[in-house]
């Protein structure tokens, strides 16, 4: 009797896992074909050799490209990109938190409308929006004209790091607002009342209760902004004018101008590994605050 019932249970479990596989199958296939396979190709290329003519020889496997990953101009570009991504993340966080907090504390109906407003930019093409930013910040653009109208100097920020920073913050802020909102919307506000009841001022209650409890949102938003900001290509290319290369356009340069595919591949993989480590570390740390 007992043996039979165990047998039934195992059979049920096996059937369950078969069903799970079946449901996931289309996704698995898609991801293997268009994500895992290209990734492996990039990895293989990073060990290949660049020939004199600029083509890639899939022979003479070596670690030369990897040895140069964090050296010379690459190191400089990496550090600049890291700083820019970090500043973008921090600025987005500082600008998004109060806004997410404000949305989360509105009546439910207004919240839905405000969230749609946050997402409206996604309805138009990113490239088009970036060109609009370029127009806006140009020396003959609206910002400059308004400044001059009030007797100020023309605004000359286009093709500087500032323009890139503004563009990045603009582009990625929704990715910060949404997870922050999700975390704050779930907040049990009676906890804040409890803190106030226990002699905490409004600010202290925020620091001791609201902020720690919204950390998962802060972590998720930061990761979602930091990672694309680190690898950003379009924004620095258009708003920065390619004058001070960042990781994204530096890697593109390796492939298109320098025609050094193995080096470009090694750089891409290195950036991915760094992001992966950062993500794991961040989520572990973020997870512990709960």
């Amino acid at each position, binding site marked *: 009797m007992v043996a039979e019932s165990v047998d039934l249970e195992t059979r049920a479990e096996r059937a369950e896992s078969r069903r799970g596989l079946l449901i996931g199958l289309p996704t698995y296939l898609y991801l293997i074909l268009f994500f895992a396979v290209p990734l492996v190709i990039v990895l293989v290329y990073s060990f290949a050799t660049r020939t004199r003519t600029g083509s890639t020889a899939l022979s003479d496997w070596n670690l030369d490209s990897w040895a140069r990953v964090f050296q010379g101009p690459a190191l400089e570009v990496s550090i600049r990109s890291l700083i820019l991504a970090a500043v973008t993340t921090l600025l987005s966080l500082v600008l998004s938190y109060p806004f997410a907090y404000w949305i989360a504390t509105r009546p439910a109906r207004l919240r839905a409308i405000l969230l749609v407003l946050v997402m409206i930019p996604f309805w138009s093409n990113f490239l088009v929006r970036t060109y609009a930013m370029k127009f806006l910040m140009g020396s003959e653009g609206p910002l400059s004209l308004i400044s001059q109208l009030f007797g100020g100097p023309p605004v000359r920020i286009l093709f500087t790091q500032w323009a890139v920073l503004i563009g990045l913050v603009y582009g990625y802020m929704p990715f910060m607002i949404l997870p922050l909102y999700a975390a704050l919307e779930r907040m049990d506000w*009676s906890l804040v*009342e409890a803190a106030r*009841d226990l*002699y905490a001022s409004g600010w*202290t209650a925020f620091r*001791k209760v609201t902020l720690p409890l919204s950390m998962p949102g802060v972590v998720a938003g930061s990761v979602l902004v930091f990672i694309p900001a680190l690898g950003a290509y379009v924004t620095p290319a258009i708003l920065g004018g390619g004058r001070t290369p960042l990781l994204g356009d530096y890697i593109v340069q390796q492939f298109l101008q320098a025609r050094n595919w193995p080096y470009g591949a090694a750089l891409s993989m290195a950036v991915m590994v760094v992001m992966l480590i950062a993500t794991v570390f961040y989520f572990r740390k973020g997870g512990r605050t709960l």
Partner: protein
Amino acid sequence: MSRPAVELVGITKRFGDVVAVDDLDLTVGDGEFFSLLGPSGCGKTTTLRMIAGFEYPTEGTLKIHGEEMGLRPPNERPVNTVFQSYALFPHMTVADNVAFGLQMRKVPSAEIEARVKRVLDQVQLRHRADAKPSQLSGGQRQRVALARALVNEPEVLLLDEPLGALDLKLRQNMQVELKELQNRVGITFIYVTHDQEEALTMSDRIGVMDEGKLLQVGTPEEIYEGPRSRFVADFIGDINLITATVSGPDRVRLGNGQEIEVRSPGPVGEEVTLALRPERLELYDLDEPMPENHTKLRGKVIRRMYYGDAYFYDVEVGLDHPLEVKEENRPDVETYDMGEETVVCWDPAAVNVVTD
């Protein structure tokens, strides 16, 4: 009553068009266990929240120990709250939760440690000091919430349905514990509940609320034995409500034409509601000797319910509703079967005349 702990004068609270609390006057004495009792939405929690400082009254004045609170924020009021959902900080240990208020008031850390230990001993949770709230049972969480408030030695402790989430047995135990605790620490308790049994067993006085109004204030006995309105009578315990017309100085006429004795029912000709507790009614056999001056109505048992410690009978006596009679389950109390003819009998002094 000694000097008042909390005084509400003409307190009204409106949320838009909704009047949550309507011109409420209430004085709670120092060291008193006072319950605000009423159905959900009656304004009792809003009243509590105004005392705590989470809401401000639209009109009226609110004083705690003689001091007017005005727009003082919650952190500057000498009261602490035990929240309905406990509102324990999930990211802090039990000890940190309890220490929170003392830390905010910059009490020296050695003293904080000693006081936290003492209060955790009081609620028998010393051994769970390093646990997170999520690792505790409902009853334990409830006690942490209590400890977190009590450690601050507030002048007034506000409790918002603190036992609502516990199961029956635990709730009954906590009722006893809470009452004993209150006796021991001598702090004023203002206790919000919709559970009449809780209010009756623990309170020194009860205020019954409905639709934002304070209907009656009194000791548990006064509220239970002498409800002044139909609502209070009906909300607290089981009761028979009988419509009658005053026919003389101490007499009323029932719907079936029978005249019975009721002490000072009001002006002759007026329609009144009589309130009668089921346990004050007795059933007799038709031929049994009955107390001389008691009111007697002849009827027929149409339902019998067994409650373990008692039987509840519905007896049809020719009025709008059958009368509910509670008879204790004792060997010397006779039981009646469905359909049996009987006489319902009560002392005229047990009848309360209530307003609508």
